[in-house]
């Protein structure tokens, strides 16, 4: 492996990180939107958000990505590869995330909601000041898992010829013929990114817990 090839792989890693962050932002928005909708009082809202979740959990992220990239242009919308990738990953992982949000919202004791009602908080204040601060720490560990899944999912974008890590590795392999070395290196790079993501999420979890007075046990306690 020579210098220029390392530059190629590092550039690819940067695109991978960007793709992960964009998709994660979209997925988080979808997860909270759909997750809240699934706890709505109106049955039609619950039903429609349920259909969304079952649809995107039922299909394959890669097939969705190909559909957005190859089939959607035939309807007149041409998406750049990066956006097709972001959209497919964000929409599907958002569906998984919405289940996490729903579960965490439901795990907040009903008395908390009732107390907020008794104190005549508006619905928005109830959510913002009482429910979410208690629900968010619950969401962090499963969100971490989903974020790792999302990171692994970004490799699919290489099949749309987006210049992320796996795609650049393919170029490097074609130019050097060193398959074992190239793929070995990028596997380690993915692992390092996943490790950093996990550390950051643990930090956020500890912060979120501390903010509602649930200090985690000294030294991080559970793993």
């Amino acid at each position, binding site marked *: 492996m020579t210098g220029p090839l390392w530059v190629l792989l590092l550039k690819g890693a940067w695109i991978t990180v960007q793709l992960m962050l964009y998709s994660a932002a979209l997925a988080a928005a979808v997860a909270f939107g759909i997750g809240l909708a699934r706890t709505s009082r109106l049955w039609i809202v619950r039903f429609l958000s349920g259909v969304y979740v079952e649809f995107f959990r039922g299909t394959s992220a890669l097939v969705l990505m190909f559909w957005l990239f190859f089939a959607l242009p035939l309807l007149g919308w041409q998406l750049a590869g990066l956006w097709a990738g972001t959209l497919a990953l964000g929409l599907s992982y958002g569906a998984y995330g919405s289940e996490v949000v729903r579960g965490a919202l439901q795990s907040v004791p009903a008395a908390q909601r009732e107390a907020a009602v008794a104190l005549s908080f508006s619905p928005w204040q109830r959510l913002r000041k009482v429910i979410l601060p208690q629900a968010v720490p619950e969401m962090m560990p499963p969100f971490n898992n989903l974020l790792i899944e999302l990171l692994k999912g970004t*490799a699919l974008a290489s099949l749309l010829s987006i210049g992320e890590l796996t795609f650049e590795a393919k170029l490097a392999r074609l130019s050097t013929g060193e398959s*074992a070395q190239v793929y070995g290196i990028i596997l380690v790079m993915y692992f390092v990114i996943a490790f950093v993501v996990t550390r950051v999420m643990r930090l956020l979890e500890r912060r979120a817990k501390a903010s509602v007075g649930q200090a985690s046990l000294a030294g991080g306690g559970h793993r």
Partner: protein
Amino acid sequence: MNDWSWDYVGDIMPKLLDGLWVTVQATLLGSVAAFALGLVWAIALRSPSRWVTWPVGALVEFVRNTPLLVQLFFLFFVLPGWGLSFGPLTTGVIGLGLHYSTYTAEVYRAGIDAVPRGQWEAATALSLPRGRTWVAVILPQAFRRVVPALGNYVIAMFKDTPMLSAITVGDMLFQANSIGATTFDYMEPITVVGVLFIVISYPTSVLLRVLERRLVR
């Protein structure tokens, strides 16, 4: 802009169903591999020796935290260089099985942990050998807790099989792409593939939920 053509769908259906059969084969064989390998990891991780648990734990963490697609490329391009030449489908099954075994190992671990400690102690008190403790006491009790979670991973694996098309396995997505490449019309093939995935995976997941309620009281 072109219109949806059912005639075209009819024409391509046989090829897509061929692809579906390959997809199903990959899923089933991959599941068997993942169930078996995962059990090996789970039992190895319970070993009293650090010389076993550390390398197995590191391998499992590494495989779980890196993309299946890259692992597939690794197996596909690297194994032949080591003198291990398999067909694309076999390589795909090995990749799926290995990747998902790191998840099933976790499922087994939870299932084994859920077996009450008294069961281990009773086996020790009866001086059952270690092998028989596992086969006759622990695993039968762990399995019923484990089945629904394993089922979910089979569905997840089913939805990941399109990745095998990247290593030239003739699965559904591969067929859809090759049809699209000749007709320049991707709309029908890819839509049909997406719909087939939902039509199969949604009822399966509903069935699993029913099974879960039956098995876990």
